[in-house]
């Protein structure tokens, strides 16, 4: 049987539901020390005095680390660099007395018990020399500066805009949104082998953390092993090493004992986040719905010490045919921690604005929103003037609309009703990249027909273990129960951080190319057997199937792999390989989607319910229809939250997040989530990579908030451009 393309259950499902799957904060050691972090209560300034004497006096407290007594750390920025660090000077935990953001770690209390460390942390006395801070993007717009343009302009957008028959121009806003993965950020640092560190860390990149820790503390790669076998959600928050891993290592180095540090939920609001962004979109159209110009400008926030920006703008005239296009991305520096990637960074925000703007244009043109998108459909990536490896977006529109029943929509706002509810149907397009990265892989095949497949990637809950097992099973012709997957260990073959939706395509390619070499070896062994039925065949002439080496031309010509190995006296075949994709500058690689949403809005009270959603996705070959559908469904839920709920509330007088907990930082709860249908549109693609895989980690959220916002407009006639769409904005 083949496993690729089937709804294979998670191979790690049992470990997760039985609790045997261990997460970073669950690993332990006999002499474990517990850490608690003290964080700053001002946004900018310096620590004038820090007094840990009361904390140290508590029985069971072992030490309190601050910038004054921490172990030696690298003195230059290079020591703090990581694989995904933006331009700038990375934050250095406990390095000096400077305060760069509210919630910054300023002390680590180490104690024999967690409760003791947590109590003692409240006793650390801090005096600050505070300076005037600035945390409000809206007050710093005039200070925003241009960053490297996302894509080159084409034509003259301003001129085309001025001359256009129909123009739409508006400003959209996305507030700060914080990561709230179920698993808190945590690290457990243990000692072994006479002075080597094993760091269990919540991360999307074990090798990234390993290099980072070595860089900061001047350690050799052999002295630090980073492990992350299970990750309870990350979505970009774990791409960069987070400060708790530095603090935990500091504690371990200081005390020469094992240290566990788990952040609290409110401390998670001192980590990365989706930056507040102002999006200005101007679209110029002809009366027939074709476009003359798109201008997309984004103004986002970043920290004082790093320049974080993602591509918000150039999706606009990538997606829709327009001779003239102009993009600008500006950043305003604020006294905040550096933003981070969050599921579909740039696209979730930029395409939200674009797709709302397109909806507004459709209203102005009196065109059906789907019809408008078809009229400016582009078969080429216009930014780079390239054809796509595949693009089945039209099919997404068609299948999505059909499943949703879009044809029954009446165009006028407030024209559809259900009792006291106004009914709104909205749609939007989604687009993301089909990225792929060099990836290492090791396969160990034993003569008993078992294989171990390993690489240093992560499974952040997305199903990487399972798809690796599926791809390896198919490539090696073994039942999935005979395949063991290892990942999340820096000692395994090379992997980039797990992000950008590139893992599925990259790891699958790495497994198949490594399996090719296994097959080559097996064939050689089989051909050494007397009277081998495979004599004379090349390795491309055979496949591995059902535990046998089989001639493609005639299934009857086969040799069981166990026989081939035993005859050759080979108990195990091990192959390790770094697989890189062939460079292809002649194609654009993207995934696409069409999202259709129904909302019901109580006319009198403005209460919104998202009653139905259909997300039709074209993302190449889907390895696992079950885990992939879960990813899309989760993305839709997040998109609903982005549209209606999520907003980090910062009190700018204090420069401090005030709803730093998941009671007051709202994400959708079960009552907010109803019928979500996921459709995978067939998208054969032999160009993107041999297996035709594009990845589904991010495409599912892109466009969802716009579809909800457009549905709310259709229901109410009220266009809310500032997210989240709350009751006050509907009634106001």
């Amino acid at each position: 049987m083949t496993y690729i393309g089937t709804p294979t259950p998670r191979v790690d499902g049992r470990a997760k539901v039985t609790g045997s799957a261990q997460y970073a904060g669950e690993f332990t050691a006999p002499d474990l020390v517990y850490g608690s972090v003290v964080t700053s209560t001002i946004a900018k300034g310096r620590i004038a005095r820090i007094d840990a004497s009361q904390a140290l006096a508590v029985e069971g407290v072992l030490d309190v680390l601050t910038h004054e007594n921490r172990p030696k750390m690298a003195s230059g920025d290079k020591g703090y660099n990581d694989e995904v660090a933006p331009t700038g000077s990375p934050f250095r935990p406990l390095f000096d007395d400077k305060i760069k953001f509210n919630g910054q770690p300023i002390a680590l209390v180490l104690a024999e018990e967690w409760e003791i460390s947590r109590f003692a942390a409240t006793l650390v006395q801090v005096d600050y020399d505070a300076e005037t801070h600035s945390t409000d993007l809206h007050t710093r717009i005039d200070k925003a500066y241009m960053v490297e343009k996302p894509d080159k302009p084409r034509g003259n957008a301003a001129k085309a805009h001025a001359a256009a028959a129909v123009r739409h121009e508006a400003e959209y806003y996305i507030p700060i949104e914080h990561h709230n993965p179920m698993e808190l950020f945590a690290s457990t640092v243990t000692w072994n082998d006479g002075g080597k560190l094993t760091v269990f860390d919540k991360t999307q990149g074990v090798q990234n953390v390993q290099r980072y820790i070595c860089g900061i503390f001047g350690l050799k790669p052999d002295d630090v092993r980073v492990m992350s076998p299970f990750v309870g959600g990350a979505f970009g928050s774990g791409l960069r090493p987070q400060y708790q891993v530095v603090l935990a290592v500091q504690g371990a180095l200081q005390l020469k004992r094992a240290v566990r540090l788990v952040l609290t939920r409110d401390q998670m609001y001192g980590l990365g986040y989706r930056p507040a962004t102002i999006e200005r979109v101007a679209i110029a159209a002809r009366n027939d719905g074709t476009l003359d110009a798109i201008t997309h400008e984004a103004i986002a926030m970043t920290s004082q010490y790093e320049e974080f920006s993602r591509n918000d703008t150039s999706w606009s005239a990538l997606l829709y045919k327009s001779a003239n296009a102009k993009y600008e991305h500006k950043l305003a520096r604020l006294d905040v921690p550096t933003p981070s990637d969050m599921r579909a960074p740039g696209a979730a925000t930029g395409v939200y604005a674009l797709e709302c703007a397109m909806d507004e244009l459709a209203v102005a043109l009196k065109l059906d929103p789907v019809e408008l998108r078809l009229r400016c459909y582009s078969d080429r990536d216009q930014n780079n003037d390239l054809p796509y490896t595949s693009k089945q977006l039209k099919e997404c529109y068609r299948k999505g609309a059909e499943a949703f029943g879009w044809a029954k929509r009446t165009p006028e706002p407030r024209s559809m009703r259900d009792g006291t509810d106004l009914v709104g149907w909205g749609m939007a397009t989604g687009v993301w990249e089909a990225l792929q990265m060099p990836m290492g892989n090791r396969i160990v095949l034993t003569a008993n027909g078992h294989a171990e497949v390993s690489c240093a990637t992560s499974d952040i809950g997305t199903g990487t273990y399972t798809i690796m097992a599926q791809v390896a099973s198919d490539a090696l012709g073994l039942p999935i129960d005979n395949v063991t997957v290892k990942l999340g260990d820096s000692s395994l073959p090379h992997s980039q951080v797990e992000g950008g939706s590139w893992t599925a395509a990259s790891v699958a390619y790495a497994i198949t190319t490594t399996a090719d070499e296994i097959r080559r070896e097996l064939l050689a062994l089989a051909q050494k057997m007397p009277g081998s039925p495979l004599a004379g065949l090349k390795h491309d002439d055979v496949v591995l199937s059902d535990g046998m080496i089989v001639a493609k031309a005639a299934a009857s010509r086969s040799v069981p792999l166990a026989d081939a190995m035993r005859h050759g006296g080979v108990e195990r075949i091990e192959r390790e390989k770094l697989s890189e994709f062939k460079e292809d500058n002649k194609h654009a690689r993207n995934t696409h989607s069409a999202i259709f949403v129904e909302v019901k809005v109580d006319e009198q009270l403005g209460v919104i319910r998202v009653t139905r959603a259909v997300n039709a996705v074209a993302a190449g070959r889907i390895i696992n229809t079950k885990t992939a559908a879960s990813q899309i469904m989760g993305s839709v839920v997040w998109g609903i939250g982005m549209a209606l709920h999520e907003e980090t509330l910062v009190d700018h007088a204090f420069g401090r997040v005030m709803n730093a907990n998941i009671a007051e930082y709202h994400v959708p709860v079960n009552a907010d989530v109803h019928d979500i249908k996921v459709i995978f549109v067939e998208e054969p693609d032999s160009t993107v990579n041999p297996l035709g895989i594009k990845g589904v980690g991010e495409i599912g959220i892109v466009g969802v908030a716009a579809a909800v916002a457009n549905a709310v407009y259709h229901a109410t006639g009220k266009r809310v451009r500032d997210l989240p769409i709350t009751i006050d904005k509907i009634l106001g």
Partner: protein
Amino acid sequence: MINFEYARARDVADAVRQISADPAATFIAGGTNLIDLMKYDVARPMRLIDITHLALKTVEETANGGLRIGALVPNSDLAYHPVVEKRYPLLSSAILAGASQQLRNMASTGGNLMQRTRCFYFYDVATPCNKREPGSGCSAINGINRINAILGTSEACIATHPSDMCVALAALEAKVHVAGPAGERAIAFAEFHRLPGDRPEVDTNLKADEIITAIELPARGFAANYSYLKIRDRLSYAFALVSVAAALELEGGRIKEARLALGGVAHKPWRNAEAEAALRGQPAKSDAFARAAEILLRDAKGFAHNAFKIDLARRAILRTLAQAANATPQIQSSKKIR
């Protein structure tokens, strides 16, 4: 969280004795709010007196046709109690509008009255808050006040009381039975919670050495015409922006008796006798409802982020009264507003 002593009370008298002897002690029952407050370092009791073993867990019908609810009856038991469901469905509905199933399983009836505000600043010890630290100032007045009060506020505090259950108890004119060193007394529900005034650190008129033993409901339950409607920023598991408890007695299409209480808008469940009087004798129609809403919200005052609550409350009052009048009460398990 600080270190604290733990003691268990044997009976009500023992609980009163223990609390009287130690002003730094606090009773704990379900702990659904207190434990959070301790974790955030907002509450720092030196001693917890566990009252969960007291015999205050029964629901009994009283001689005058009312109901006496033990202070330790869990919120979920109370909500699904057959007599409450039948005769006081407003109370049942309000309880089910609050928190989550898990929290309602833990939370006690008395504890529900004693829960503290959810004002962001009260929970963050890094910011000034008069309720948490008297005299330090109110950060919410000029800060993030979307969830704060529009009625009965003071210069010192604009916090709200977060309970749903208490809004129904206010409308039903419950009595709070308490025991103290001087014996037992009953407090009218309207007198139980305070407005902030210049002492926002004091939430209630319960004395420091008293314990709630029971809630007593009068015979009148408004089971025919009632509704509890809660408006919030997501469809479950969020505190009310505005909630309305409406209870009517109708006679020939006219309102004979009316109760109207608001949640999420003030330091206590908000009632106004004049608004209720304006409903009495009127046809149960929108004109009368609008007049009541107008009176009830006459003195409402919004701040930078919560002025919308005034209009929202007005709309919610109209709707809830209509639901009550039409005998189509809001069903909490359905998120569609009737």
